[in-house]
């Protein structure tokens, strides 16, 4: 049995040697961070959960390509993001559905001001604003701001030039700021 004390490196070495049980602690370790990335990309809980599951399975099946000594989570996240991008291309409805879900949740909370602190309202507003962003903008903000990836890493991950990362990110921030401002005015 493996536990959570084992390092990624040790666990991955065992996995590569054919012991699939060593993969279990890695799932436990990274499922929530990965869920957050997937949720940000799909804005849908069920889709995000499915994508996390798929990402772990793809990672396991491609474990031979993983080089020991490199950060596992970055590698896993790249697999997950690529998979999610393909998913989103096929499933364009998800953004609209999620947007409606977020909006309806905020509307409900507004009817219950006792439980709605100002801080919470602000965060909910950002969530709604993110949902209103175009898909590409939302993903790039998530990768930079939430996941703290470098421009080079995002460039590799999304297969776009570094200059495009820079300009797309700047525009996405501008747009997000504008949406939040509009929401505050209403």
């Amino acid at each position, binding site marked *: 049995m493996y536990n959570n004390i084992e390092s990624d490196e040790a666990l991955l070495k065992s996995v590569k040697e054919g012991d*699939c049980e060593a993969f279990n602690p890695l*799932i436990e370790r990274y499922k929530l961070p990965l*869920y957050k990335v997937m949720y940000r990309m799909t804005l849908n809980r069920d889709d995000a959960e499915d994508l*996390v599951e798929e990402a*772990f*399975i793809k990672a396991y099946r491609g474990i031979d390509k993983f080089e020991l000594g490199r950060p596992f989570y970055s590698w896993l996240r790249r697999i997950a993001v690529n998979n999610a991008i393909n998913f989103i291309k096929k499933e364009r409805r998800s953004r609209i559905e999620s947007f409606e879900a977020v909006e309806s949740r905020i509307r409900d909370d507004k009817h219950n001001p006792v439980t709605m602190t100002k801080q919470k309202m602000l965060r909910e507003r950002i969530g709604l604003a993110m949902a209103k962003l175009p898909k590409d903008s939302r993903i790039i903000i998530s990768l*930079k*701001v939430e996941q703290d990836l470098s421009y080079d890493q995002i460039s590799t991950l999304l297969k776009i030039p570094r200059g495009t990362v820079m300009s797309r*990110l700047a525009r996405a921030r501008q747009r997000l700021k504008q949406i*939040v401002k509009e929401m505050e005015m209403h």
Partner: protein
Amino acid sequence: MKCDLPIELLSGYLDGELDDKQKAQVEDHLKECSTCQEELKALRQIDNDVKDEVFEEPSREFVFTLNRRVMDKIRVPARRSLFRFAPVFAPVAAAFLILIVLINISPSTKVAQIDDRMVYQELVQRQEVLVSIPEPRIARAPASMKRTARVGKDKAAAVQTEETRVAEADETYDIAELEVMTLPGEGVVRAIIDSTGMVIKVATGNTRIPEKDTMLENRLSGQQLAPPLIAGRKKQVYVDFAATDEKDD
């Protein structure tokens, strides 16, 4: 003052992704441009808000069962790999199993079958043999059974009962004790007597392959007759008992 700083540079400055020259350019501009200072502050605030943003928590099912679901799926290929060639080997294995079953359910040497007489016929056609069939004491039966042994096509030739009767004949049961007198007068009783003289199969009828008569077999099977002898050796034999009237003898 007119602001001419590209927004990409301000965004890149925020992320620490500019080269030294670009960084110096932005810092020089910020010293003089309050609009860009405000813009930078606003962008930083947006980033902080995004980091703090609540998102929909994953389901309990996800939290508690994801590990098991993933592990179940990644364990499966290992098991499947044993059966990777199943499409090729499965029919072969199935055929092999059927063959084994057929071999196991084929007649054992203990239980004689209807085809056993073929072996017997073949043997007799090649040489003169003495056949000893246990002699039931038919004289006492009102409608006795005249026993004949099938020896090739000539039933009578090979039956030399009196000469070859062996001492074991003393152990023979009277035919009356076999209670076959209730048989139809024109019927034929066929029996298989194993090498120890025990009746193990009984059938009745006039056809070449008589019908199994379970009731009669239950009555007769297990009865001990004298061991049949073929060329001096105890052999399992297939025997017809023809029911005839005593007066015809």
